[in-house]
């Protein structure tokens, strides 16, 4: 078992990760909290909205607060169409943010649900341009297949609408993606509690991305640590192969007992 765990690495693009918790940075009360939060969580992948990256404002530039050994995953937050997402991705690369890009295309300002169709379009274009594309999407099997065909490096279905902390409401759909899609499935958005992150990992998700749950916790640093532990625990449980769930107690007078007589 130990060997399995020590070899349990997550490969995305050309990166090999040991932590399966990805962190979002959009809602903190102070960027100065970010390094501490990242450290406590053990996270190696951090997403930042390009819309907020401001290289000219050193003190407020969020990228300055992300440790150099972390993988920066700029996202296209604010994009309403594939075209806008593509422009933002190119700007991010030009700004030196690397090749990873989380596609976020949202044209629903009431619920912030992703536009799967525009997301597929943006993924096709950016994957062809050599980006490591991680699309955020509403969990739908056919869309996930199209994203895989389009060259996505992973698929990021939502657990519940962004920022709601409602948990893994899309569980059955995410489960199907995990079974059917040969790419890492990263549950993004909606996870509000470490136990929910652990549940996603137990199901076989490759990773979990969390922002609001940590940023709006009374103690973000301690919450980040709790998420790191929960994700690792959930992953271990998945690898350990949980025993079957028994719906009924094993009967002392089994119905088929006579066969053994």
């Amino acid at each position: 078992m130990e060997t399995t765990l020590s070899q349990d690495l997550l490969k995305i693009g050309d990166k090999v990760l040991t932590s399966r918790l990805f962190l979002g940075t959009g809602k903190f009360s102070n960027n100065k909290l970010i390094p501490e939060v990242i450290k406590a969580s053990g996270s190696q992948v951090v997403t930042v909205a390009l819309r907020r990256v401001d290289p000219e404002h050193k003190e407020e530039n969020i990228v300055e607060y992300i440790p150099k050994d972390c993988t920066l995953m700029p996202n296209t937050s604010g994009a309403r169409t594939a075209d806008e997402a593509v422009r933002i991705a190119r700007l991010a690369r030009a700004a030196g943010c690397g090749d990873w890009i989380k596609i976020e295309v949202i044209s629903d300002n009431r619920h912030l649900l992703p536009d799967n169709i525009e997301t597929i379009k943006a993924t096709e274009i950016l994957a062809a341009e050599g980006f490591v594309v991680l699309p955020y999407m509403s969990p739908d099997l056919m869309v996930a297949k199209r994203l895989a065909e389009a060259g996505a490096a992973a698929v990021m279905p939502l657990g519940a609408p962004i920022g709601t902390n409602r948990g893994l409401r899309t569980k059955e759909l995410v489960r199907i993606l995990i079974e059917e899609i040969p790419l890492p499935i990263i549950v993004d958005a909606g996870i509000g509690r470490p136990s929910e992150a652990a549940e996603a990992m137990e199901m076989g998700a490759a990773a979990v991305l969390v922002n609001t749950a940590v940023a709006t916790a009374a103690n973000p640093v301690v919450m980040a640590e709790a998420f790191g532990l929960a994700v690792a625990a959930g992953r271990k449980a998945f690898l350990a192969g949980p025993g079957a769930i028994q719906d009924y107690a094993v009967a002392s007078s089994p119905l088929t007992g006579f066969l053994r007589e």
Partner: protein
Amino acid sequence: MSVYEELSNYRDLNFDKFFDQITDADIQRIIGKQRLTVLDYLALLSPRAEKHLEAMAQQAHRLTVQHFGHTMLLYTPLYLANYCVNQCVYCGFHAHNDIERKKLSQEQVIAEAEAIAATGLKHILILTGESRYHSSVAYIKECVQTLKNYFTSISIEVYPLNTDEYKELVEAGVDGVTMYQEVYDEEIYAELHPAGPKRDYRYRLDAPERACQAGMRTVNIGALLGLSDWRSEAFFTGVHADYLQNKYLDVEVSISPPRMRPHVGGFPPKVIVTDKNIVQYVLAFRLFMPRSGITLSTRESAKMRDNMVRLGITKMSAGSCTAVGGHAEKASVGQFEISDERDVADIAAMLYSQNYQPVYKDWQIW
């Protein structure tokens, strides 16, 4: 259906009678609801709801942090010109007011831009008085081209445009429109706008919708509080915002609750809108539209603004000056007097002291 028709659904509503029927239990139930109806929103604007402000505030704060985090977007207005052909009785730029009229040259626009950019802000709101002649769309576009070198988000607060003109400006790089109806009550509107193109109530009312159709990312609306009964004005603003958000899901619809400020004309407010009224309006609106932006300008006092940070506000102006060219040179007469005179660094420090992060930049597409 147009917004005019949408608003007409409520013109005959007897507000007093509606308010009389609201009970404490109604308010408590509404505060706990997942999604409020338009009439729920009106109930939260009732005198009865004043007793429940703390519960509303807790919920508004929770929703705002959930959707926006502990952050506050900062921006500042930049006045390009103050020529105006209208005669709004409540405004310092009124066509007949004897003030020095100015319009910035591109060199002056650069000077303003440099002064503002030095504070770190990346979002600006450019304003002109309402004169198509002096501040033509071509002039605005030229200024936008200049300003794009300094800022990543440019919004406009100018006279109402037609859809094609808004489109032209979107293509030039403008991403937001602020358009205040000033007063939704049509009779009072006619009274306060005695002459000039602004008399056309419906052309103005439809302007935010035209901006949505033209592809603007953010559309900010509002009533100027003090011109009519604030409860019904707040209600109609909410109905308007809800109408736009339902029809244009991809647009970030936001509101501002500006209160009348002293200005050169000296027109006194018709109605006194208290701090408590503003708070109730903002809280009710936050519960009604949890994802919408709410902007609080420097018309409000420093004390009021500090206290509103945790009550649902998502955008604040900082280091404001309402005079043309006022950021770079000694100011002439402003459109109205500002109240919170702190500079950007002071506002940032205030936000940090409340455990909030100032956001200088929240959009970039070029």
